C-alpha cells in the first residue's frame, strides 16, 4: 500500500496543499433546488459548532422514535457506511437483512436529464452510476471502481487498477478502454457528453487518459493536481458504458448505463424514474431490494403526506411545519453539504446596492437569526457568514456577530447614503427621487423552496421598518439558467439573488471569488464583483498553511463584514425522512446523496 496515496495523510496536508493550483471546483453552481439547509440543534453535531466539524461531510442524524430504526450519528457512522458500501456489508439495522421489495421514494425536483453535473441529477444518478473512487468522511478517498492507485513521484501521473469482474448493467465489462472513453467524452466539446464539472475542475491540468493494460488506466496531467482523487469521487464523474457515450444525449439523458446497484428501466417524465436491481452488480448479494420507484412529488404537503399514509418509504426535504413530526415519527437523515451556505448575493454593480452604506444598512435591517427560526422551525440552523459555511476549513467564526439586528444603525446608514425621505408607502427615497426598492429574484422550487420563500417574506417585513421595499420575483428554471454567466439575462433586473454552491473540495473561496475559472468569467459569483482577486491569487500561490489561514480570514472579512456583498442564511442540507421499516439507508459523503445499496425492509 506504500505507493498509494494515503487518504489520511492527504487529509492532514490538505490545508497546506489546497490552493496550489489554478482552477477549481465548480460544481453545478446554480445547483439547485431545494436543498434544505440546516443542521440541527436536536443532535448537537450542528454545522454551527464549526471547529468540531472541519470537514464538509458530516452526516448528521436525528432519529427515530419508532423502534427498530437505524440510529446514525456523526462521522463514525459515515465512515462505517462507506466501508459498508465498499465491502458489501449491511450498513446498520437491528435485524437481519432480507431480500426483496421496492423502495418508493418521493423526491421533489425532476432533473432535465439523467446524466450531468447538476446536484439534482447527482442524487438520482448515484443509484446507477459509480465513480473510480468514493468519497469518505473527512475528505478521505476510498476505492470504488478502482481498487488501488499509484501517484508518480512528481504527481502528474495517476495509475488506476480497476476492479475485476465489474459489469455494466447492459452486460458489457468495465475495461480500461471503457474508462478512457469516459475521460475523453468529458472534454470533447459535444454537449451530449461534455462534462462542465470535469472541465472546470481538471480541464487546466488534464492531458490524457491511456489504457496501459486491460484493467489499468493511466491519467496524465500537464501539471500536478493534488485534489484529483477528490474530484474523481464526485457524483458528476460517474463512469458510463461506452454504448451510452456513443449513443449520445438521447441515451445519456433517458437511459444511462452504469455499473451501479440499480439500472434505469424507464423515465416517465413528470411522474417517476423506475429503477431495478442491476443483476450484474459487482457487490455480490447487493442490493437487497428489487428496485426503486423514484417519484417526483413537487408539492410539500403531498410529498410528506405520502410518507405518513405509507405510500412512500422515503421522502426528501421535509417541509418546516412537519419537522417536529418527522423527528418524532420517522428516521431522519441529515447531511450538511459543504460549500458556501444558502445566502443572499447583493448586486453591487448598480444602484442601490452599489453603495456599501446601503448594503450594510440592509445587513443591519435584517434579523436573520429570528427569520431562520421562524421560517424553518428548527429544520435548519442559522449561518451568518455569507462567504463560506461553518463546515469549511478556515471558516472564520469571529464574523458571526458582524451584522446583528440593529435598525438604528440601519437608519443612520441610510440617512448617510442620502435616502433621507420616505414616500407615502413609507419607502425611503433619495434626493433624485429614487425609491429604495429591492428586487429579490429566485427560481421557485429550483433554488428556493416554499420554506425559503417564507424566509424571504419575513425578511421583507423586517427591512420594511427602516424603509426598504423588497419585491419578491419568482422566475422559472429556464430563465434562471439562461441568465447564466455574467448574468446578462437578468442583469440590473435583480438586486438580491439567493445562491449557493455545493461541493466537498475545500476551495470554496476560490470558486466564488476568483475573477476567472479556466479561461471563462467566473459565473459562480453572480454579482460579477471580485474585490478580493489579489488575496485569491496569493492564496493560490501560497504554500504556507498559516498564510492561507490569514488570507482566508481576510477574504471572509472583506466580502462579508467590510463590503457586505453576501449575507448567509443557512448551511445547505439534504434531509430525508424514512419509514421505520426500511433499514440501512445512508448518505454519501459527497453531497449527501441517498444510498440504497444496503437498504432492506424489516420483516
Amino acid at each position, binding site marked *: 500500500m506504500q505507493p498509494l496515496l494515503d487518504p489520511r495523510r492527504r487529509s492532514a496536508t490538505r490545508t497546506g496543499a489546497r490552493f496550489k493550483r489554478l482552477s477549481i471546483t465548480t460544481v*453545478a*453552481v*446554480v*445547483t439547485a433546488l431545494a436543498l434544505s439547509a440546516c443542521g440541527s440543534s436536536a443532535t448537537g453535531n450542528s454545522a454551527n459548532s464549526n471547529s468540531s466539524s472541519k470537514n464538509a461531510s458530516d452526516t448528521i442524524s436525528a432519529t427515530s422514535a419508532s423502534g427498530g430504526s437505524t440510529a446514525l450519528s456523526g462521522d463514525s457512522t459515515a465512515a462505517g457506511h462507506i466501508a459498508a458500501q465498499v465491502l458489501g456489508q449491511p450498513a446498520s439495522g437491528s435485524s437481519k437483512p432480507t431480500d426483496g421489495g421496492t423502495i418508493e421514494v418521493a423526491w421533489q425536483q*425532476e*432533473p*432535465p*436529464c439523467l446524466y*450531468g*453535473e*447538476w*446536484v*439534482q*441529477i447527482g442524487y438520482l444518478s448515484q443509484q446507477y452510476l459509480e465513480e473510480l473512487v468514493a468519497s469518505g468522511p473527512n475528505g478521505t478517498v476510498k476505492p470504488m471502481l478502482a481498487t488501488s492507485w499509484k501517484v508518480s513521484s512528481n504527481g502528474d501521473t495517476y495509475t488506476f487498477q480497476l476492479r475485476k469482474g465489474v459489469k455494466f448493467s447492459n452486460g458489457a465489462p468495465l475495461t480500461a478502454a471503457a474508462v478512457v472513453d469516459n475521460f475523453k467524452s468529458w472534454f470533447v*466539446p*459535444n*454537449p451530449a457528453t*461534455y*462534462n*462542465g*464539472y470535469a*472541465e*472546470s475542475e481538471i480541464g487546466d491540468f488534464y492531458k490524457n487518459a491511456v489504457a496501459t493494460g486491460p484493467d489499468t488506466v493511466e491519467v496524465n496531467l500537464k501539471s500536478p493536481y493534488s485534489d484529483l482523487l477528490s474530484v474523481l469521487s464526485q457524483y458528476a464523474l460517474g463512469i458510463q458504458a461506452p454504448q451510452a457515450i456513443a449513443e449520445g*444525449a*438521447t441515451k445519456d*439523458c*433517458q437511459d444511462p448505463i452504469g455499473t451501479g446497484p440499480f439500472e434505469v428501466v424507464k423515465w*416517465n*417524465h*413528470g*411522474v*417517476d424514474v423506475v429503477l431495478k436491481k442491476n443483476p450484474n452488480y459487482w457487490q455480490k448479494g447487493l442490493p437487497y431490494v428489487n428496485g426503486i420507484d423514484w*417519484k*417526483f*412529488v*413537487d*408539492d410539500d*404537503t*403531498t*410529498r410528506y*403526506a*405520502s410518507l*405518513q*399514509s405509507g*405510500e*412512500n418509504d422515503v421522502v426528501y426535504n421535509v417541509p418546516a411545519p412537519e419537522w417536529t413530526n418527522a423527528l418524532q415519527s420517522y428516521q431522519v437523515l441529515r447531511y450538511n453539504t459543504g460549500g458556501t451556505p444558502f445566502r443572499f448575493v447583493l448586486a453591487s454593480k448598480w444602484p442601490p446596492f452599489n453603495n456599501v452604506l446601503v448594503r450594510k444598512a440592509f445587513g443591519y435591517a435584517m434579523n436573520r437569526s429570528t427569520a431562520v427560526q421562524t421560517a424553518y422551525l428548527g429544520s435548519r440552523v442559522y449561518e451568518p457568514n455569507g462567504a463560506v459555511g461553518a463546515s469549511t476549513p478556515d471558516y472564520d467564526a469571529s464574523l458571526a456577530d458582524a451584522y446583528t439586528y440593529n435598525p438604528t444603525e440601519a437608519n443612520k446608514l441610510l440617512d448617510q447614503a442620502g435616502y433621507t425621505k420616505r414616500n407615502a408607502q413609507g419607502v425611503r427615497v433619495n434626493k433624485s427621487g429614487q425609491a429604495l426598492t429591492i428586487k429579490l429574484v429566485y427560481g421557485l*422550487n*429550483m433554488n428556493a423552496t416554499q420554506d425559503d420563500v417564507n424566509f424571504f417574506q419575513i425578511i421583507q417585513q423586517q427591512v420594511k421598518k427602516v424603509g426598504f421595499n423588497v419585491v419578491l420575483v419568482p422566475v*422559472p*428554471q*429556464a*430563465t434562471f*439558467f*439562461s441568465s*447564466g*454567466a455574467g448574468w446578462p*439575462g437578468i442583469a440590473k433586473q435583480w438586486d438580491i439573488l439567493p445562491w449557493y454552491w455545493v461541493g466537498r473540495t475545500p476551495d470554496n473561496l476560490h470558486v466564488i471569488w476568483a475573477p476567472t475559472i479556466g479561461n*471563462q468569467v467566473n*459565473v*459562480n459569483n453572480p454579482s460579477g464583483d471580485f474585490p478580493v482577486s489579489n488575496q485569491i491569487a496569493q492564496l493560490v500561490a501560497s504554500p504556507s498553511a498559516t498564510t492561507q489561514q490569514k488570507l482566508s480570514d481576510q477574504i471572509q472579512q472583506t466580502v462579508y463584514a467590510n463590503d457586505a456583498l453576501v449575507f448567509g442564511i443557512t448551511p445547505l442540507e439534504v434531509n430525508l425522512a424514512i419509514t421505520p421499516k426500511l433499514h440501512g439507508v445512508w448518505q454519501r459523503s459527497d453531497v449527501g446523496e441517498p444510498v440504497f445499496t444496503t437498504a432492506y425492509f424489516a420483516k
Partner: protein
Amino acid sequence: MSSADTTSAQRVVAAADHGAAPLGRRAGRAAFWLLKRLFGGVLVLWATATVIFILQALTETNRAKSVIQQLSGSSQNPTKADVGAFNSKFGLNESVFHQYWSWIGGLAHGNFGISYFQHEAVTTIISRELGPTLVLTFVALALAWVLAVGVTVLAAGRNNFASRLATGFQLLCASLPTYWVGTIFLVVFALDLGWFPVEGATGVSGLVLPAVTLALPVSGFMGQVIQDEFTSVLGQPFVLSARARGMSDIGVRVRHVIRHATLPALTLSGWAVGYLFSGAVLVETVFARPGIGSVLVNAANEGDVPVVSGVIVASAAVYVLANIVVDALYVVVDPRLKSA
C-alpha cells in the same frame, strides 16, 4: 298524458316538419352544419398556433444557452459550436417566416416538433399524457353536472332553510380555490381518514379526490345558472298544468322543468371543459397525478417551447371539439333549435 305540455307539443310539430323532409336533405344539412363548425374550429386553432408562435418568438430568453445549461446542469457558457448545433437541429437559425411556416405546416401534418428535453416527438408526449387528463376532466364534468342538477332539482323554487343552504353551498363551491380545496381534501380524506391514496394512483380510487376537487367550483357555477332558469320555468303555465293533472312536485321537476333549465348549463359545459382542463394543472400537481397539466408545468419551467406550444394547441383542440359537441347536444335536448 303529457300531450298538453309545450315541449312535447313542439316536438311533435318539429318531428312533423322534418319527417316530411327527405332523409338525405336532413343528413346533408347536418353535414353542412358540422363542416361549418369544423372550419370555424380550424380557424380558432390556426389563430391559437399563430399567437403562440408570436409569443415564443418575442421572448428574449437565449434558448440554446438555457437548454444546454439545464441539460448539463452547468451554468458555464456553452460554446458557439454547441449553440449553433442546437439552433440548426431545431431550425432556430432560419428566418422567422420560415420558422412560422414550418410550425403551421407541421401542425397541419400532425407534426408538433421535438421536445428539447425529452428527445421525443411532442405528439408522442401529448398522446401519452392526454388520456389521464381527459379522464379527469370528463369525470369532473360529469360529477359537476350530477351535483348541480341534483341540488337544483331538490332545492330550487322553494323558500325554506334547505334551499337557502343549497344556494349557499353552490355559491361557496363556485368561489373555492382549487389548490386549497385539493390540499384540504388530501389532508382530510387521504391522510387522516385514509380513504384514498395521497399521490399518483391512476386507478378509480386515485381519481375520486382530484375529480371532486375540480368538479366543485364548476358545479357551483352551473348550479347557479341552472337554478335561475329552473326557478323561472317553474312559473310557466305548462308546469301549472302538469301539477293540475296531479303530477307530483318532484315528477314535474324531473320530467318537465329540468329539460329547460339545463340549456344554459349546457352552454356553460363548453366553458367548463376549458376551465377543468386548465384546472387540471393545479390538481395534477397537488395529487402528483400524471397528465398534460404536469407536463405543461414542467415544460414551462424548463422552457421546453415545443412542448408548451403543442400542449396549448392540443388543449385548444379539445376545447373546440367540446364546444362543437355541446352545440350538437342543444338540438338533442331542445328540438326547437333544430329548425333554427
